[in-house]
């Protein structure tokens, strides 16, 4: 086959053509890329119409925006929860307590496990809530500080107490009136979370750990200590260790706690700040001891005899994951009925027996004992008096404080 090469082309053009024949397509060249990147830089520099953009103020009306409630017509409720936060039967396909709810009320539950991280989930629902739109969810579960933020922003709906008789009667006293939602007007506790110290006996190799101070100072644990990337848990435990009350501290106290942690970071004492992935570090022995969530530790302990936990004399942090109904949710009444259902002792006990977190429902112990005697006597699931006395909550922060404190904590963890 003859190549098509008219004489009129300059030698350079012919060469270019040959090359493109050889490569079977127009080759990407250095020059073309340079030209393109210069163009890109120009475009980036030349954007002059940015002023039109902006993000509207978040706060709408305090008290939330009620939407039209379609509960009576549409017998369904969309429930977004964290992964592994619901009882599952042996086949792994059914959620027995949810099915009981459906059987009793006729309301179908569309259950989605699409929450993995508070911050990420906030980023996901923020645009819709800020614009006053339906998120497609009737019930969401968020940790207390984020629940507080949503209430502050006016993005969740006030609950109707007449739909919540069991919840009102059975909520444990220690969860009744958090400072971010006095009297539980907007939220009810799904589960409580205790923050404790977990350790790996084998990795500790005889080193005695009793307090946060041991974690921060004992040179034999250098580089084998983990803290949580959740600011309130790590700083809260440190504040307690320093004799301060996390429910009532000043900015100076906070700075002092950060400085204390910073010293340990600088010494190389703290290996890493982790999310939920500390569990693998702890089982492998890379962490000899770490700040951990009790619900995880109960499960880890069942799998590995080396793992155990302790509660420091100075106390431990408690937080909660809370059920909330976002603005514009279509099935508010159905969602409220679901909340109330989980405050009846029987379903609450079935759930607690499965997920090992702190059960917020009074009168559940007898029901739980019928299912699992050990769980009923485990203070991590149903706190006894001594345990409850040592529990502390982190005070709620103003928006300004939140940014300031998170910024300082971010610097501590390496940015």
């Amino acid at each position, binding site marked *: 086959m003859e190549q098509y090469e008219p004489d009129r082309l300059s030698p350079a053009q012919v060469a270019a053509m040959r090359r493109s024949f050889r490569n079977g397509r127009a080759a*990407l060249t250095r020059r073309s890329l340079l030209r393109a990147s210069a163009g890109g830089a120009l475009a980036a520099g030349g954007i002059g119409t*940015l002023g039109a953009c*902006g*993000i509207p103020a978040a706060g709408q009306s305090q008290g939330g925006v009620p939407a039209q409630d379609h509960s009576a017509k549409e017998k369904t409720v969309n429930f977004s929860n964290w992964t592994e936060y619901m009882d599952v039967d042996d086949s792994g396909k059914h959620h027995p307590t949810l099915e009981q709810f459906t059987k009793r009320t006729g309301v179908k539950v569309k259950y989605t496990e699409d929450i993995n991280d508070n911050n*990420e989930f906030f980023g996901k629902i923020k645009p819709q809530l800020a614009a006053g739109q339906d998120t497609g969810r009737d019930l969401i579960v968020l940790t207390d500080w984020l629940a507080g933020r949503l209430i502050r922003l006016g993005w969740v709906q006030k609950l109707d107490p007449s739909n919540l008789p069991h919840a009102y009667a059975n909520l444990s006293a220690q969860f009744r009136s958090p400072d971010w939602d006095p009297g539980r007007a907007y939220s009810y506790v799904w589960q409580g979370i205790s923050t404790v110290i977990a350790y790996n006996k084998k990795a500790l190799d005889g080193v005695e750990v009793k307090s946060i101070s041991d974690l921060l100072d004992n040179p034999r644990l250098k*580089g084998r200590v983990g803290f949580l990337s959740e600011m309130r848990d790590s700083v809260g435990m440190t504040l307690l260790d320093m004799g301060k009350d996390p429910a009532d501290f000043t900015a100076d106290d906070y700075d002092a706690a950060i400085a204390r942690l910073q010293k340990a970071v600088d010494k190389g004492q703290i290996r*890493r700040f982790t999310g939920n992935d500390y569990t693998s570090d702890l089982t*492998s022995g890379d962490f000899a001891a770490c700040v951990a969530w009790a619900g995880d530790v109960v499960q880890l302990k069942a799998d590995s005899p080396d793992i155990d936990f302790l509660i420091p004399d100075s106390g431990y942090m408690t937080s909660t994951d809370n059920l909330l109904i976002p603005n514009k949710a279509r099935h508010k009444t159905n969602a409220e009925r679901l909340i109330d259902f989980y405050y009846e002792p029987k379903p609450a006990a079935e759930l607690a027996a499965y997920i090992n977190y702190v059960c917020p429902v009074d009168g559940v112990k007898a029901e739980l004992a019928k299912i699992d005697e050990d769980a009923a006597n485990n203070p991590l699931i149903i706190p006894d008096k001594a345990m409850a006395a040592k529990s502390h909550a982190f005070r709620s922060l103003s928006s300004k404080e939140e940014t300031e404190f998170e910024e300082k904590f971010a610097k501590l963890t*390496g940015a």
Partner: protein
Amino acid sequence: MSTLTEAPPPLAPEAPEPKPPKRRGRWTPYWLLLPGILWLLVFFALPMIYQASTSVQTGSLEEGYKVTWHFATYWDALSAYWPQFVRSVLYAGTATILCLLLGYPLAYLIAFRAGRWRNLIMILVIAPFFTSFLIRTLAWKTILADGGPLVGALDTLHVLDVTNWLGWTAGDRVLATPLAVVCGLTYNFLPFMILPLYTSLERIDGRLHEAAGDLYARPWTTFRKVTFPLSMPGVVSGTLLTFIPATGDYVNADLLGSTDTRMVGNVIQTQFLRVLDYPTAAALSFILMAAILLMVTLYIRRSGTEDLV
């Protein structure tokens, strides 16, 4: 009257070249470009403009954000987080060089020596993509675990003493040190280096090697004077495909690193999601983009190659 049809006239040397069929197809290239352009506009240009706008806004979540042309955010972000920038470039650069050192011999082998194993080896190079990036990185935590056999062996061989001295590791561990992060980056981006290198090497005409041999070039000289220069397009695109994403990576630093190995990607993530300082996060993203654009431009200018693939 002739029964013969006329023979076609001989092609005149100055015959006009076959014209494209009228003007009907004039708009075709634009129609073909349309989906791509729309895609770029909606998913690249608009978000870029939005982010550029965010970076010069001030405000808070409650009061809303307004464009105030507050360019000081850029300076503040840079002066607060320059160590993370320097670290990102350093780690990504090291990982790119390691990828090149590991990838070149392998690509060479696949292109010239693998014979019937070629396809199998190519599949092995691509195979890791069948598993999630996250899972593969988490697997490195098991491989590099403190009490694990690898770290034990490195310790016995006194390799860790050397890396400790260099400041790449600390104590008797590899995890949660710069070395682990660089290893993770190298591992995760290695296929992006090998594939363009292979494409480039495979295209080299084997007869050039024979010719070099005929002209009494030693194998090393052949490589230096023939093979390597001809593979430069692959080297350049491979290093770009490795370096650019590695600089912005945050997963490796998050899972394999410690507080002193955080990269700029981690800072951006923290500012966006945790601190909720959107302007600073947007400004950091733009500084990173500008820095990469500058470095890549300088690099391509100096690389002395014309083709890039």
